[in-house]
C-alpha cells in the first residue's frame, strides 16, 4: 500500500532544507507550505528521532528567543535568554509523547504549543523567584534569582505538598472544614473572601474562624501532623 505521507520517505536533510525554505517564506509573509516542518516535528516526536529534534532546535531557536525577550517578565528574572530557550524546548520534548503528537493536526498547532511551553517556563521562573524572595524574607536575606530555589527541589516540594494535602483531607470531618482548609490554606484566601464565595456554607465570617479554630485545635493534637509541620 502506498504511503499516504510521501514526505515520510524523504531523507532528513532534504526535509530540513525545505522546512528552512518554507519558514523563510512564512516570515516574509508569503504563502508557505507547512508540510516539511510538520514532518520534521513528526520525526522528532512520533519517531523520537534525535537528529530531527536537533534540527528543530536549530530551526526554531530564533523564534523562541524572540518570544522570550519580548515576554514582559523576562527582564526581571535576571537570567540569560538561552537558559529559557533550552527549558522551553525541553518542556515540549518531555510533554509531547508519540501518543500525544497525534493531537496536533498542523504546524501552526505545534508552534503554538512551543510558544505555550515558552510562556510556561517564564511563569514558573517568576514563581520560583517569588518563592525565593519569600524564603529570603523569612531569613532576612536578599535573593534575586529564580534558581535560588532549585528547580528539582521545587518539584519535590510540590509533590510533597500534594501528598500531604491528600493525606490531610482524610483528617477533616465535614464540608465546612474541607472548605476552610482548602480555601484558607491551599488557595491562600482570606476568611472574609471565603465567606463571600461560600455563602451557603458559612453564614458569617465568624463561622469561618470558628471552624478554623476547631480544625487547628484538633490537628495540634495529631502526632503525625506535628511531625510533618515545623513549629507545631
Amino acid at each position, binding site marked *: 500500500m502506498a504511503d499516504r505521507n510521501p514526505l515520510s520517505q524523504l531523507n532528513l536533510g532534504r526535509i530540513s532544507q525545505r522546512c528552512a525554505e518554507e519558514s523563510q517564506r512564512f516570515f516574509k509573509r508569503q504563502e508557505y507550505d507547512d*508540510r516539511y516542518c510538520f514532518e520534521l516535528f513528526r520525526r522528532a516526536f512520533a519517531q523520537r528521532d534525535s537528529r530531527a529534534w536537533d534540527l528543530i532546535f536549530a530551526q526554531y531557536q530564533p523564534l523562541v528567543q524572540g518570544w522570550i525577550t519580548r515576554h514582559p517578565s523576562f527582564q526581571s528574572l535576571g537570567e540569560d535568554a538561552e537558559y529559557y530557550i533550552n527549558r522551553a524546548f525541553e518542556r515540549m520534548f518531555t510533554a509531547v509523547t508519540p501518543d500525544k503528537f497525534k493531537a496536533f493536526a498542523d*504546524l501552526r498547532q505545534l508552534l503554538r504549543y512551543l510558544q505555550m511551553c515558552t510562556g510556561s517556563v517564564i511563569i514558573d521562573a517568576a514563581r520560583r523567584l517569588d518563592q525565593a524572595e519569600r524564603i529570603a524574607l523569612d531569613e532576612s536575606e536578599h535573593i534575586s534569582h529564580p534558581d535560588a530555589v532549585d528547580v528539582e527541589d521545587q518539584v519535590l516540594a510540590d509533590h510533597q505538598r*500534594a501528598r500531604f494535602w491528600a493525606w490531610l483531607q482524610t483528617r477533616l470531618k465535614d464540608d465546612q472544614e474541607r472548605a476552610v482548609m482548602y480555601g484558607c490554606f491551599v488557595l491562600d484566601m482570606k476568611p472574609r473572601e471565603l465567606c463571600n464565595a461560600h455563602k451557603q456554607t458559612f453564614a458569617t465570617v465568624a463561622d469561618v474562624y470558628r471552624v478554623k479554630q476547631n480544625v487547628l485545635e484538633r490537628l495540634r493534637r495529631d502526632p503525625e501532623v506535628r511531625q510533618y509541620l515545623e513549629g*507545631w
Partner: protein
Amino acid sequence: MGCQCNETIDDARLLAYLDGEPDPALQAQLTDCPECQARLAQLAREQDSLTKGVRWAACPTVLELGEYVLGLLSPERRQAVAAHIVDCHRCTDAVAQIRAFLNADAVEGVAPAVGVVERVRVLVAELFTPGPTLSLAGLRGTVGDTLTYKADDVQISLDIAADPGQPGKRSLLGLVIGADQSGLEVELWRGDTLAAMTTVDDTGNFSLDGLTPGRYSLALSAMNLEVHVEALDV
C-alpha cells in the same frame, strides 16, 4: 503566670486579629498580657507552617494550565481544571498570562498557509522496470545499470556509469519525461548531506559527475512538483 485578661479570648478571635480584622479591645488586651501574646505567636507559627505545607497543593502545573488554554486536556480533566481555576487566583492569573502571551505574539496570522490545491505535488517514485539505455550513454563509453522510476505521470530514467574523467568515480545520467523540464532542479543527497546538484536541460536530460559510489537519494523539484527517488545505489 497565666492569662492576665479580664475576659477569655478564644483562638477564633486571635486568628481574626492575625488576619487584620479590626479589634481595638483585643489589641489593648494583648499589650498587657504576655500569655495571650505567646498564644498569638504560636497561632501565627502554626498557620504559617500549615500554609507552607499545603499552599497551592491542588494547583495544576503551569504546563497543564497551558494545555487547558490550548484545549488539549481530556473533557474530565478540563472540567476539573476549570473548577479549580474559578477558586484559585494564582491559577486564574497564570491562565490570563498564558492567554495574553499567546495572543500578543500569535504564530498564525502572519501569512496564510498554502491551500491544498496550490501545494507542491510531492511524489516518491517507484522503480518500474529496467529501461532502455539512454541515447547519450554511447557518447560516454561503458554503459552501467539503467533504471526507470515512475511517479504518477512522471518517468525518470537513470543511467549509472563510470566517470571517464575521474577514476573510481561514477556519473549519473538522467532523462525526465512527463514533467515540465524548464527550471527543474536536481539534487543528489547522500544521507543528510547534499552531494551534488544541477538542472534539467530543455531536452529533459541531466548529468552529475564525480560521484563517490554509495547510496543516494535524488530529488527533482520545480515550482509545483517534487519527485523523489530513494535508496539509489550509485
